[in-house]
């Protein structure tokens, strides 16, 4: 087990270097320049542009630019092209903004998808099952941003309360209970919107897993023993049906970055996804690279975590 973990970490570290190098090359080779060296500014002279390019090391060979980036990242002095602010504190601030949205959306997905999928499997072919199948395919097919717009129009139109951004404006002097609840309210619509797609997809998986388990011999045996139906389903079948989902916990990690770019954009939420999006638009290489690097770290850590979790919960699997 420990062998496995150590070997895997080593492998992933090598992979991380390769991924970051490839990503670095791709980002720099893609067309477009940082907006600071935008030659469409009619007043900019070639001399000025040459100076800015030199300051950003844009004329150095790619591997040198990579080395500069690694050096500055390691020393914590990496700066954004856009406003010359240190990259890591900037990312951390945005991360704290994105975190509640991410946690709440994940909670909603996992608490709603399981009952929805399980009941669908238990009452297979019934009205409820067919209704949820239809609904989940509808929700998978309708783009999230479209639903979000409808939700905004509907909520604002009917209830007349603000839903955009992280809190209501002009509430600075209100009591703290009101302020906290105001923040919770602003979380509701974007997190529900971000969760809907996830609920639809995950409940389909749960349903099919559950159906598979319910058709197995030991379930029939349990029923033959004369156990109550609830005991059969929730006592015997459910645990086994849920096993594969444990591994998905690990895969949630990379969703922290870029998991909700669209929703943050629509709801004017000052989070990580928007930071990444704006950085890409203005070709702010240090930010793009660092976010990409963190995403790669999270993905690799997530898959490792999944492997380990699977071994922990399923005694049939042994890691070598």
């Amino acid at each position, binding site marked *: 087990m420990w062998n496995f973990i150590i070997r895997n970490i080593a492998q992933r570290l090598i992979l991380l270097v390769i991924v970051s190098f490839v990503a670095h090359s791709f980002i720099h080779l893609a*067309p*477009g320049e940082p*907006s*600071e060296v935008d*030659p469409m500014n*009619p*007043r*900019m*002279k*070639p*001399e*000025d542009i*040459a*100076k*800015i390019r030199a*300051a950003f090391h844009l*004329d150095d060979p790619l591997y040198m630019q990579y080395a500069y980036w690694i050096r500055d990242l390691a*020393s914590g*002095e990496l700066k954004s092209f*856009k*406003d*010359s*602010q240190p990259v890591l504190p*900037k990312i951390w601030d*945005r991360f704290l903004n994105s975190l509640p949205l991410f946690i709440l959306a994940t*909670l*909603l997905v996992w*608490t*709603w998808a*399981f*009952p929805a999928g399980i009941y669908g499997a238990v009452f297979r072919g019934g009205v409820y099952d067919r209704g949820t199948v239809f609904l989940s395919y509808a929700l998978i097919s309708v783009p999230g941003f479209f639903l979000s717009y409808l939700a*905004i*129009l509907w909520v*604002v139109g009917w*209830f*007349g*309360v*603000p839903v*955009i*951004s992280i809190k*209501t*404006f*002009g509430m600075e002097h209100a009591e703290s*209970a*009101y302020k906290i*609840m105001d923040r*919770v*309210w602003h979380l*509701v619509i974007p*997190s529900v919107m971000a969760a809907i797609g996830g609920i639809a997809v995950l409940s389909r998986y749960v349903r099919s897993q559950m159906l598979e388990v319910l058709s197995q011999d030991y379930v029939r045996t349990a029923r033959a023993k004369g156990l109550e139906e*609830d005991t059969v389903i*929730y*006592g015997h079948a*459910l645990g086994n049906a849920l096993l594969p989902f444990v591994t998905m916990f690990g895969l949630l990690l990379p969703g922290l970055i870029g998991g909700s770019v669209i929703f943050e*954009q629509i709801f*004017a939420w*000052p989070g990580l996804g*928007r*930071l990444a999006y*704006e950085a890409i638009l203005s070709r702010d290489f240090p930010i793009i690279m660092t976010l990409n690097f963190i995403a790669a770290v999270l993905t690799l850590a997530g898959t490792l975590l999944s492997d380990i979790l699977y071994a922990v919960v399923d005694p049939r699997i042994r890691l070598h």
Partner: protein
Amino acid sequence: MIVKRLLLFIPLVLILLLLQSYFWVPTYENQAAGNPDRLVTYIEGSSGDAKILNPILNADSSSSSIVSQVFEGLLDLDENLDLRGRLATDWQISERAYLVVNPHHRFPDGAEVTGARLFQKIQEAWKTGTDEGLSKAVQSVELLSATQRQDSISLLLPNAEGRPQLKDVRVAVHVPERVAFTLSQVDQDLFDRLKPIVGEHYFEHFPYDEAIHPQEELAKETEQALRDKYQEILPVGEHNPIIVFHLRKGVKFQDGHEFDAGDVKFTYEAIMNPKNLSPRTPDFEPIKTVEIVDPHTVKIIYKRLYSPAVNAWTMGILPEHLLNDESLTRETEQRGLSAEAQKAFGMRDSQFNRQPIGSGRFQFVEWQGDEFIHLKRFDGYWEGPAQYHDFYMRIIPELFTQEVEFRTGAIDFYGAQPHQVDRYKNDPTYQWFSSLGFAYTYIGYNNRKPLFADSEIRKALGMAINVGEIIQYLMYGEGERTTGPYPKNTEWYDSTIQPLPYDPQGAKAIFQQAGWHMNAEGWLEKDGKIFEFNLITNNGNPIRKNLMTIAQNAWKKIGVKVNTQVFEWAVFLGDFVNTGDFDAVVLGWSMGIDPDLFQIWHSSQAGPQQLNFVGYKSQRADELIVRIRQEYNRDRQRQLTHELHRLIHEDQPYTFLYAPLSTRVLDKKIVLVEEGPDGKEQYKKIYPTKSGDITFYFHKWRKLEFTPDF
């Protein structure tokens, strides 16, 4: 079964917990009633966050809109787009000019040129008044003796990969005797006036190799690049325009420190400091020196004629005491940076750019990245405080959400899209303002291609397009026909010029005259080739895309075959526009207030990566463009711009289409508050200035509790 119940209860409890928060959030009606501060708070929506709040460093519109509230320049533009004094009370423009003695030259009478002779001849002409312009503007003439000086010249040379890079070369310059002139106003024709005395060719053939000596061994390319700079290093005739600013006394920065001439000089030096990478350098690079005459007088001497440099002083002035080397060093120490980072640390890295202090009407309070920027009014402002107490810029990237927030009152201002304008114009809750901006949309033809080389053909192509229809249907009427390169709401635009008529028959006739005839398939054909080209534009702008289709269809009717294509912005610029490898493009320009069109229309700017990408070349236009940027007199400038406008209109390098109108919608409760004669407040309806700006009187704006009747 407990598991079953949990599976049911947990999601229900979670969603109920979330939904109950609704009851804690005030609705808009309640919010306004319980929150009187809302009436003195102005909230604006912006689709992009600011980048850097420093007047010498910012280059994006969100940053500049905040910076213009926090900082103030020496000058600004008044209702009529004329300059008026802000931090400066008034200013005078004069000139000092130098004529170098060219020892290898002979006067028209055959005599050899020496300093004494040149001086004597000029003095004679000046005193006797043979040239009226000379005797009128020149106040004194003197002879300066020869000197030596050391210069460091920056040359732009291609490196191994062909990218331009800067190289500094040290040179010793031997400056011969010079005649110096003092003029009461700038006269760009001074040296032309002297030509009858010194001879037509006096300004050519100066023996530069004798005067300029590089202090190091130079490679061949470097030497050539240096040679190209000779006239810049030692011009035979040199104009030095001078601006003297008298500064307002008793003006304070928002931290209480008094503003003086040192801040002006510091701001200039900060712009020119290569470490700061200021995008403002082009406007300040022509400055030779900034002298502090006394704490409230600054004298700025320029190296050459460059009239846009006057407008450049509308830029905000920085507080020296917060950004000088001492303060920056203190900041690096407080932040505990590594030695290397300390060395590289410059103004760009300072926290000042996140919490600026200026001398403008509003002072900075808080900035939450991608969320909002909060300003409050500066009570110590020299003209008195603004009506609004607080100013918020909220960052809402989606236009749709901006509109939703506007309609519920969470922002006070909305820029309506063309298709929404009708809806808002008919809604009694809002007041709206429609005006021209500085932008226009055009179809640009690659003038280098033989197909478009003839201005008549370009004219015919323009005549085939029904611009009126485009404005009516594509822009929902939110645009005006434009005929030339200047913004319609400036005096540089000549409104007497008539737009091209919509006349497909006339267009056909022009093609026929040029030898094109209609073939069997309905296309224009000449020498076995049909008139066919590609029209391209950038992705992400639906109006341009539709425009392309309309043009394609209009041209098809007269027998011109057009293929259209849309490219991603970076590809569009990189592969087509910058390389000049295109036939025709649909694009738009957003112009400045200055009449200088050098970058866009001068023939020297037609190379790769340059902005005259259509390759427009006209000798007369070049002359006019240079004269305009060297002219400091507004009336003469206007005459020249009108001539240039007419010339470009006749040449039709672009088909000028329309200038979009922008419509801004505000709550009707927002009014102008003025003090009446009896000392009581008077309310007036907000009105735009001549140039269409409604925020010019922003400091008088306030929201009332009731909707006033005007």
